[in-house]
């Protein structure tokens, strides 16, 4: 369980986080979304005690992070892929942290195997690709077999297989009853992973709710394609269904596909395509975060 309440943090003149409250529950993957610079990293760093909030507080497992006993055995965090000494091997990076946390060296080998980094474990981390650094970061977070996993943009630098692997992995952790909070600036990236989403913009909460509710907003109108698009458009508008040409003989219509199909059939118009238009997730995301920028 992660609880953030009334969190505020300024850096100079910038309000990085502004009265933010949300929670991430165990057994779920919570997606933490917002455009770049929305305050995601600051919030996550405040949760693990690296950043001191000006106001409000963050608790993990009911306590401020600093007050946790052996925190790395309860909470794992992947914050930035670059937080590795370039001259130290991946294995030694993990061994250093394991030594400090009193975690046995055998666990280092386990997590290296888990993230499939054994082959490169003895190489200096300065030569790692971004994807390898991300996997080392994940290995670091998992060292203590934590109940809570916090990941800041963990998919950055991963190839498509890596992203898929990560998605399955995070889902698996949540299925075991752990709390997973994962940030991203791309809604589509977490759409298939997250159960819950917390969307922030300019340090403020825009929306918290189940993923399916956010996805439901992505449904907009009907997409239809016809060799007689222009004629169909006129007929649809006459029937009270505003339509817009989107090129290549396609129209996007404000109305259900049934009514569009019926209108076309009644007028003997050939259709090449008819279906529900799902505005891209990014459009929903932009809409949510823009309405925040321009309060009406």
């Amino acid at each position, binding site marked *: 369980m992660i609880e953030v309440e009334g969190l505020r943090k300024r850096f100079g003149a910038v309000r990085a986080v502004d009265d933010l409250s949300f929670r991430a529950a165990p057994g779920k993957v919570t997606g933490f979304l917002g455009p770049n610079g929305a305050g995601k990293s600051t919030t996550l760093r405040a949760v693990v*005690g690296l950043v001191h909030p000006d106001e409000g507080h963050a608790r993990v497992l009911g306590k401020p992070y*600093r007050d946790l006993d052996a925190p790395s055995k309860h909470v794992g965090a992947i914050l930035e892929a670059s937080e590795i000494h370039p001259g130290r091997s991946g294995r030694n990076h993990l*061994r250093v942290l394991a030594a*400090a946390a009193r975690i046995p060296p055998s666990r280092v080998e386990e997590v290296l195997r888990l993230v499939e980094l054994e082959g490169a474990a003895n190489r200096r981390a300065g030569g790692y690709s971004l994807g390898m650094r991300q996997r080392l970061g994940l290995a670091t977070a998992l060292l203590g077999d934590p109940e809570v996993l916090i990941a800041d943009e963990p998919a950055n630098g991963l190839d498509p297989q890596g992203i898929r692997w990560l998605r399955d992995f995070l889902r698996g952790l949540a299925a075991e009853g752990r709390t997973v909070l994962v940030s991203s600036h791309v809604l589509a990236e977490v759409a298939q992973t997250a159960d819950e989403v917390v969307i922030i913009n300019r340090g403020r909460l825009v929306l918290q709710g189940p993923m399916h509710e956010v996805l439901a907003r992505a449904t907009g109108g009907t997409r239809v394609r016809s060799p007689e698009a222009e004629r169909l458009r006129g007929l649809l508008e006459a029937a009270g269904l505003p339509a817009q040409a989107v090129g290549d003989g396609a129209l996007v219509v404000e109305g259900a596909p049934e009514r569009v199909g019926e209108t076309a059939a009644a007028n003997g118009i050939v259709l090449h395509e008819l279906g529900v238009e799902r505005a891209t997730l990014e459009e929903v995301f932009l809409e949510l975060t823009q309405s925040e920028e321009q309060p009406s």
Partner: protein
Amino acid sequence: MSALVAAEYRKLRSVRSFWGYLLALIALAGIGAAGTIGSATDQDRAGDAFLPDLASVAGVSTLIAVVLGIVLVTGEFRHGTISPTFLVTPVRERVLAAKLAFGVAGGIALAVLALLIVAAVAIPWLLALGDSIALDADTMRNAAEVVLQAALWAALGVAIGAAVQGQVAALLGTLIWVLVAESLISALLSVIDLDGVSKFLPNAALSAVVGDGADDRLMFGPALLVSLAWIGLIGATGLVRTLRTDVT
């Protein structure tokens, strides 16, 4: 606490700069010893002060000790490893305490190693010249004071590192202070008739831990106390800064 000190040892051992410290120490102590013996006349070598002076050549270890102390802290900020370090140990006082303990141990080890290097150069050379080597009380005292001095410089390095955080700024600032700034301040102090204050400045105080007290130097006891006071003052600044820092 012992786990954190062990982690500090692993951090140092797992990067190549570990060998850099050792090579620099071997070069400085070896060259220092060779230079002292090579440039000494028969008369110099017969003097009472020769062996004690030779022991103080191991004082070059203080330079490596202060660099080690600084880098123990600033290296983590430089490479961003301070984040995982604080994630494992969010009570930051403990991280600094471990670095201080390990830095002091490292300073002592460097000084002992420097003494061994000086001995390794000096003993065969002096024996070949037909000198007798008697480890008198002054020599032993200087050797012990060199070890103490390196421990103090390492502790001061950790304190400076915590107070400054930036590696280049901390290293360069310390170098400039020791080589230029403190002498300039001493000169200014003497202009306004405050010569007596100069010996309380950090470099002067830490230097006076080794050797006899002269007119312009503190005696051993006061030198040690003033050195500890400087370490305490800069260390307290470093502690406050470390606790307040937002690691972003």
